[in-house]
């Protein structure tokens, strides 16, 4: 019996990624888009028309990652104008920074929007309560994966906790269904101050495919201060790790 377990350990080998800041994803991964204008906007208009969430605006040419489902179909319609890179560093502190403009070659992560107390109190230990309000399970699994043997975000003092009373902040996933809105509010209020709010996934950022649905009620979010916006469908664990690390960084 012990030999069986030793064999598993041997095959398992070393799994954790030693330096999370140097991770590079496969070239196929669709991360931060790069937009190029070339005077001919017909392809861009076709791309805007097919976009399932209306994330593309042709005039002026922008792409809102907070709405984008990263299906990559627009890049097929307008290959000269839209290209998805494998850059997963797409978190932002302000909602408007998720809107990518033509010619933009990096994300804006506005450190001035980070409250001092967030940096002061959460840079060594950050416990989060996740609430899914219509998330489709893929994003919840990706958040779970941030703590697994490969990413092991827990080594930096970031982990998910069961009780909101033990939490320093809330991670929201899903477009916020009507049926879940009250439970979400109760959970948020149970978290002691100071607390942060992380909105994770394009569906949480904008409602995504369900932005127009009668079953969704996003009014809860309107009156909340959001500390981190993370696009993605689902958000890759590295996007979460990178953005939360930036948020906690002491200047």
């Amino acid at each position, binding site marked *: 019996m012990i030999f069986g377990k030793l064999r598993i350990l041997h095959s398992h080998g070393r*799994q954790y990624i030693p330096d999370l800041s140097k991770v590079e994803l496969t070239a196929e991964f669709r991360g931060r888009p790069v937009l190029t204008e070339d005077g001919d906007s017909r392809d861009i208009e076709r791309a805007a028309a097919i976009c399932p969430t209306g994330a593309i605006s042709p005039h002026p040419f922008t792409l809102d990652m907070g709405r984008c489902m990263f299906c990559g179909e627009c890049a097929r319609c307008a290959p000269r104008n839209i290209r998805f890179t494998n850059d997963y560093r797409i978190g932002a502190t302000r909602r408007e920074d998720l809107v990518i403009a033509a010619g933009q070659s990096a994300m804006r992560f506005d450190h001035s929007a980070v409250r001092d107390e967030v940096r002061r109190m959460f840079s060594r230990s950050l416990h989060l309560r996740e609430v899914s309000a*219509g998330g*489709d*399970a893929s994003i919840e699994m990706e958040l779970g994966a941030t703590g697994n043997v490969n990413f092991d975000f827990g080594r930096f003092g970031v982990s998910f906790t069961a009780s909101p009373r033990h939490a320093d902040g809330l991670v929201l996933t899903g477009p916020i269904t009507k049926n879940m809105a009250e439970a979400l509010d109760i959970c948020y209020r149970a978290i002691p101050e100071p607390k942060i709010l992380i909105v994770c996934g394009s569906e949480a950022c904008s409602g995504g495919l369900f932005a127009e*649905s009668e079953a969704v009620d996003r009014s809860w979010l309107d009156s909340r201060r959001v500390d981190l916006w993370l696009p993605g469908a689902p958000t890759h664990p590295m996007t979460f790790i990178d953005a939360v690390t930036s948020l906690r960084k002491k200047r």
Partner: protein
Amino acid sequence: MLYHITRNTASAVALKDIPTVDYIDLYNDLAERMRDERYHPAHYFAAQTAEGLRFFLLLLDDRESTVMISSFVPDYYSEEGMPSLTAVHPSFHVFEREMHELYGIRFNGHPWCKPLRFPWDRRDKNSTMDSYPFYKMSGSSLHEVNVGPIHAGIIEPGAFRFICNGEQVLHLEIALGYQHRGVEREMTRTQNSLRRALLGESVAGDTAVAHATAYADLVEKLSGGHVGENLVRERGVALELERIAMHIADTGALSMDIGFQLFQVACEALRTMTINTTQAWCGNRFGKGLIRPFGSFHPLTADKAAMIRSNIADIRRRYNEVRLDMKESPSLLARFEQCGVVPREEMLRIGGVGTAARASGLLRDLRSTHPFGVYTDMICHDSIVKRHGDVMARLMMRCREVLQSADYIESLLSGYEPAAAVPEPRYDVPLAADALSFSLVEGWRGEICHVALTDARGSIVKYKIKDPSLHNWLALALAVRGEGISDFPICNKSFNLSYCGHDL
């Protein structure tokens, strides 16, 4: 003629070919027919049509591999209501509850006519999440435990109410609906086929490939188009990759819940490897973006096929080491064996499907009973069936299926020459008018059924989705009866059902 008979591989059915019968005749026929376990309902729903509210039933005949479709239009203003099919065979309970909730139809004699998911367009707006009529028992030695809607882990919401005698669970009732996003309505609101494909992928994000395949298959049937062999093969590979990834994830999650860290971390690493293989193929770890109607933007190249084969061979070898050692670990067996038993008869009565049904000895597997895609000719699927119906059986089902799926991927890709180009997806293909189209796909959880109705212009006006979780949530409630409440987490994980797939 009560039914129009068709098959899972046939194209869409013209609405005029579906007989409109008297409900009482259908009721009497089903009361007789459902005694034979070869029949089970794939879908049963109502849709507003020109004739009024028309009910459609899709009944599967597992022995003949046929799909029997019938319909009826009851007198909506009749005060009498209709005799409930649930009273005859409980597997109809979810469908009748849904129709009662949406349209206020009375099913006389329904034993458990409670709200199903509190959809936004429900008939009775006074019925809310907070007023769910939980079953009550009284007695000085009993207490209730409420769990949810928010759970301890990073998972979706749903409310569980236990009635316990000390540690022992007497009754569990599961109230769902928190995840209701209105997917079916969104499907008909747009005629953008790409948007519908994405909605299909997000029905249940952990089953993105299977649900997207169901949508693509349904649209292809509606256009009468033929799908090339290479595309079918690549979809088959994607579906089995998803099955492997989720079965390994569940193996790890079950190990975590009994504190068996070695198996947990080994499975976490293997799952990462599996989903990263999917990501290296199509750019998304869950296979989103891979399955599209009529084609694919991510055709397999020789390099990618070789990468998948070598990764899957490695995963298969390492997972088999875990599997063999699990069966020899007494502390694991002590927790899993004879825990959370659902006997075959109960599974049959409630209409259980998929992995959970097969673990109880009930063969419900569309890959062998109603073949589609690669299972029609490229793979002769031999379903794995267990007998005991306990947590261990559900775990061993997954273990065996991972190995089987790995073998299928190997056989689909060995000698595969991706020379003939896979076509690009098409979103503008005209659909058959006044037709009903359905697709049946065996996802990793079980039977997925999508049904669509088109109008005279060929627009989709009604879209119905069934995730296997719809049937199997009741199996979980039955599994924990008589168990200690501390065994609930492992019972729950052994099913790992979808909340959003149920709530839609």
